[in-house]
């Protein structure tokens, strides 16, 4: 395999994983001081921090691979919408509490399977990052699973909101399992995870949790994709305008 192509593909891959983590972390951070009660506010804030820390680890690695010499902060704060490579499910607005928790359960379940495989990557750095993150995801899932049970099998209103969230999110889930050409190269090299192969385990486990929560699994009637190509929903730009504000207004500002 051409070494240069491989390095570019690895950069793209690591950057995309960083973008997934930072968008998820930012969406969760929006609950800070808005959560239903204090303990939950702390919990969401802590999960957000885990994702932002995750983004930092991926961006640090991406910065080392970048042939334009950008720093981790440049990657986070100075790229525009179309340069972000995160999957769409992560950038969707936080919605109500049911939407946030249903999405969280869906991505936590995915991350458990994904990170487990990534620990076996032939790339030592990715494997080390995955080994660290999977411990946190296990913990995140315990909480998001609990919440989906409480909401789905709770009051009439909580059930209805959780079901609505599920229907609104469902079409964004197939993108979790799509592998593009650049990623496919890395899968063959034993570096990247074959996402497509995670689908059936994930689907089974989601099904079990939904049944337990008395929620109905939506039909696979629509799907949206584009994040990995930089084609996003209208929400990402708004998010970045907040996330990147300080560095845009005061370039190079430090704590």
């Amino acid at each position, binding site marked *: 395999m051409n070494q240069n192509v491989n390095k570019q593909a690895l950069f793209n891959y690591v950057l995309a994983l960083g973008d997934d983590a930072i968008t998820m972390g930012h969406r969760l951070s929006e609950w800070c001081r808005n959560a239903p009660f204090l303990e939950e506010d*702390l*919990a969401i804030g802590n999960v957000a921090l*885990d994702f932002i*820390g995750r983004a930092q*680890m991926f961006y640090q690695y991406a910065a080392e691979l970048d042939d334009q010499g950008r720093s981790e902060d440049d990657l986070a704060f100075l790229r525009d919408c179309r340069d972000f490579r995160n999957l769409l499910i992560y950038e969707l607005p936080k919605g109500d509490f049911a939407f946030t928790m249903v999405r969280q359960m869906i991505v936590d379940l995915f991350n458990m399977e994904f990170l487990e495989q990534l620990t076996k990557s032939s790339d030592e750095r990715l*494997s080390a990052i995955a080994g660290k*993150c999977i*411990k946190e995801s296990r913990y995140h899932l315990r909480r998001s699973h609990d919440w989906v049970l409480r909401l789905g099998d709770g009051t009439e209103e909580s059930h209805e909101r959780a079901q609505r969230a599920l229907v609104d999110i469902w079409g964004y889930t197939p993108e979790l399992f799509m592998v593009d050409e650049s990623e496919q190269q890395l899968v063959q090299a034993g570096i990247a995870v074959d996402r497509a192969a995670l689908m059936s385990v994930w689907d089974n486990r989601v099904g079990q949790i939904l049944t337990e929560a008395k929620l109905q699994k939506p039909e696979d009637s629509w799907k949206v994709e584009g994040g990995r190509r930089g084609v996003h929903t209208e929400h990402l730009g708004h998010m970045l305008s907040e996330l990147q504000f300080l560095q845009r207004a005061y370039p190079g500002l430090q704590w």
Partner: protein
Amino acid sequence: MIPLVSESQRLREQYRKEAGLEDVWAALEQIKDPEIPVISIWDLGILQEVEQQGERIKVVITPTYSGCPAMHEITRDIRQVLEQAGYAQVEVVSRLSPAWTTDWMTSEGRKRLIEYGIAAPVGCAADGSETPIACPLCGSEEVTKISEFGSTACKALFQCKECQEPFDYFKCI
């Protein structure tokens, strides 16, 4: 209860014994976790290795949680403490693998946590074994979990059914 030390912790302690540079270890042991100021970075399992390379001191640490803001402060503290001890060139290396685990917390560290009012991690993360969590104030094992997350990512929130006091539990990971 028989105090058990995990295999990985035994190796960590052995490394320290054989590494020499006792003044450096002692200086670093003054550094406390900024959010739990009773426990040192050694007792918490963050400090791994110290090595002298000519004029230079290399310190290897393992970050706790991915987003833990205390890690920046700890890195800064390490440089500061070693500069004061007369080492001008300090390199701090953050090592991700093997990932940090509460199995590396020393028995001294566990004791200090409990005295501070935080229940120490119980059981062993490596083999998944669990022992009941006890209230750090009255010792009762009749406790109930209030939230998976406490004031920081590393803690969960519990309440004692015996003395009614809420307390933080340092999660076992």
